[in-house]
């Protein structure tokens, strides 16, 4: 009897210990976090060596940020920066897991589509005090970029590092085959009724497997077989999603559509006919054989289809310039500005990245030093020199433009939007992932011809507003 009770007590103690171990794990972590946090604020000026973990997703930029990190460590011998790079998908999955387990990097490259949800969860450090005490002048950046990273209650959660816009990418060989050149793309117009001169261009560049072009009476949409060598006039970069940064957004905006009324808005405009018309135009032209079917884009990848020469034109972002122009083995490309739409002007989404500090950072002061350095001309000019992205500071963007022209690449199609103020802001909402989950499949259904844009987008519009309003 006694023995039995003893075993039972022993057993309970084992479980108790395990439970205690599990339970106190988190508590210990936070305790250590707090301790070293306060320690580090004391030791900010002391000689204690710390390592700052920094995450980014763009492998093309890693060497230049490594260069920045080396220069930064040379100037601040006590702070070492360890850079980790992950592919886009793994990056966000990994970051989510890291936040959940309180092991997030000190500093990470943040995206406008994601940061509001991080802010809501309270995992980002507000930079207001740092910016004020160090006197960082946020008007040094391109107008609007710094404000994107400020929440409605005035807290700043990132310092801008770069910006991007959208342009048409053209396969020069396919242009030449049709007797055209890049100059013919400079002043295209587009409308959702007949596609405008942009539509004519797309038809002209479409070639079916029998060699008939899209504007010929013999054109056979059923012979648009990628394997058999058919060329689509226009290729989709990827899934439309809710915001269509590289796909429909430039067209919809030139048709007068705005996704949300201002940043952090609690209403979106998915029931707007200006959007439905635009998406329907894409669906109709996919059905007609001029634009790549969404199923092929999903299985092969939009950029791959373009680089294999199966699409003559596509829209893509400025961060892809070095990938598209850089590799001599791929198709020769040139860039043209997005077409002028019914609203009277071109349009491009203006997106910007920033560096944010996480609340799981044990050394926020040193993390701030690194963020400040990355947002300074010294580092941004290094990154600009890499000709990968356009840095947030105008002088550094000039460096990037010069680097591109040294490489023989004309990037004015991307910069024209900033010069002529034809950009619209990335729609910042606090529920981007939920909106994406609702609108993304609806967009896909339209593109697959399983319903009309007006019905399907109208169908989710109310639900989207319900999420935003809550």
């Amino acid at each position, binding site marked *: *009897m006694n*023995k*039995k009770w003893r*075993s*039972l007590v022993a*057993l309970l103690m*084992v*479980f108790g210990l*395990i*439970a205690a171990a*599990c339970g106190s794990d988190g508590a210990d972590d936070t305790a250590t976090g707090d301790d070293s946090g306060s320690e580090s604020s004391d030791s900010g000026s002391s000689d204690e060596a710390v390592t700052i973990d920094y995450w980014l997703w763009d492998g093309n930029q890693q060497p230049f940020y490594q260069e920045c990190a080396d220069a930064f460590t040379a100037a601040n011998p006590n702070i070492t920066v360890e850079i980790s790079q992950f592919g886009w998908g793994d990056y966000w*999955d990994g970051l*989510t*897991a890291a*936040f*959940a387990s*309180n092991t997030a990097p000190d500093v990470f490259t943040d995206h406008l589509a994601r940061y509001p*949800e*991080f802010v*809501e*969860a*309270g*995992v980002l450090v507000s930079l207001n005090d740092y910016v004020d005490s160090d006197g960082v002048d946020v008007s040094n950046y391109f107008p609007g970029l710094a404000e994107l990273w400020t929440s409605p209650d005035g807290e700043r959660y990132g310092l801008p590092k770069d910006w991007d816009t959208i342009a048409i990418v053209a396969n020069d060989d396919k242009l030449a085959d049709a007797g055209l050149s890049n100059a013919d793309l400079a002043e295209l117009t587009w409308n959702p009724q007949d596609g405008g001169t942009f539509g004519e261009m797309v038809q002209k560049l479409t070639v079916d497997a029998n060699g008939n072009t899209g504007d010929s009476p013999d054109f056979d949409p059923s012979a648009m077989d*990628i*394997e058999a060598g058919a060329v689509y006039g226009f290729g989709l970069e*990827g*899934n439309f999603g809710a915001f269509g940064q590289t796909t429909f957004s430039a067209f919809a905006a030139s048709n007068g559509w705005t996704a949300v009324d201002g940043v952090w808005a609690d209403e979106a405009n998915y029931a707007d006919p200006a959007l439905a018309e635009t998406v329907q135009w894409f669906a109709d032209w996919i059905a007609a054989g001029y634009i790549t079917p*969404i*199923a*092929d*884009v*999903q*299985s*092969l*990848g*939009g950029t*791959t289809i373009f680089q294999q020469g199966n699409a003559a034109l596509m829209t893509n972002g400025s961060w892809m310039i070095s990938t598209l122009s850089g590799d001599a083995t791929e198709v020769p490309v040139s860039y043209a500005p997005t077409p002028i739409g019914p609203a009277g002007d071109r349009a491009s989404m203006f997106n910007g990245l920033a560096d944010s500090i996480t609340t799981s950072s044990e050394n926020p002061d040193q993390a701030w030093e690194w963020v400040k350095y990355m947002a300074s001309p010294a580092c941004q000019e290094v990154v600009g020199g890499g000709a990968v992205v356009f840095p947030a500071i105008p002088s550094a963007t000039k460096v990037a433009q010069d680097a591109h022209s040294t490489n023989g690449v004309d990037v004015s199609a991307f910069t024209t939007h900033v010069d002529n103020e034809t950009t619209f802001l990335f729609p910042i909402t606090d529920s981007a*992932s*939920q909106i994406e*989950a609702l609108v*993304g*499949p609806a967009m*896909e*259904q339209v593109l*697959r011809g*399983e319903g009309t844009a007006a019905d399907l987008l109208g169908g989710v519009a109310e639900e989207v507003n319900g999420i935003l309003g809550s």
Partner: protein
Amino acid sequence: MTAISNRPAVGGSKLNLYGGWKVAFWFLLPALIGFVVFYLVPSIRGIYLSFTDTNLLSGRGEVIGTENYSELLQDDLFWNAIKVTAWYVLINIVSQTIIAVLIAVMMDRLTKSAFIRGVVLLPWLIPNVVVALLFVWLLDPNLGYVADVFGWFGIDSDFFTSTTAVIPTIAGVNTWRHMGYTALLIFAGLQTIPGSLYEAAALDGATEMQMLTRITIPLLRPVLALVLVVTVIGSFQVFDTVQVATGGFGGRPGGPVNASRVIYIYIYEKAFVQSQLGYASAMSVMLLVVLMGITYFQLKILRAGESDLSS
């Protein structure tokens, strides 16, 4: 515990019963610890979380009662996920069980070779993700070998890329992967059927088909019940094949559209993409309840506890 030891011992002395319990305890302890730490505690925590609005990123949340559940019942995507999962389980279990029984009977009746019996298990030895990637490539409408073969006969093939074909395709892939393992379980059950029954049947002039339907299947019932319970639960939990095969290179997991958004994909999306841990937990609890119900009825209907052999 006191009650047990005070009860008059049946079929042995009190000391023996007690001694047996003690030995068994130490053998069960490692499994018990694993069960408590990795199943019981997380399950209870999951049930608790399902009544909160916990955010994955912040780890904070407040108890909101049954709000998650009432929201769940009005969530079209949840019902879509249930429908898609049920469709998947139906195709997967029916095809997998029929093929597995046939393979097991063939292993039993046609060959004694351990090598051939081993070969049947091979697909099960390949990791799920590898299988999914393999079939993504094989079945790709543009690059895949299967698409090429279909093309020779002038048939346009869509597998993972069509809203109607994607679930049957995934079910087929998993049937291929699991049929060998299921066959092995059934094969073990076949070994318990006395050979004398077949000899007697053969003497009476029964055909192979008659022996299958009159002897094998009825006597296999308890084993089949167990196999069905295990495979149905496993089938409801399909995740990796969908995640890998429909995510593809430019797709979205659960696509095309929402055609393969099975319940586990939706739970994952809610918890780890949208950070709504509480809501995702509520869905997991619903799945738990559904699985418990299905298992109970399976065991009940198939009378898993009794065998026809003795009667």
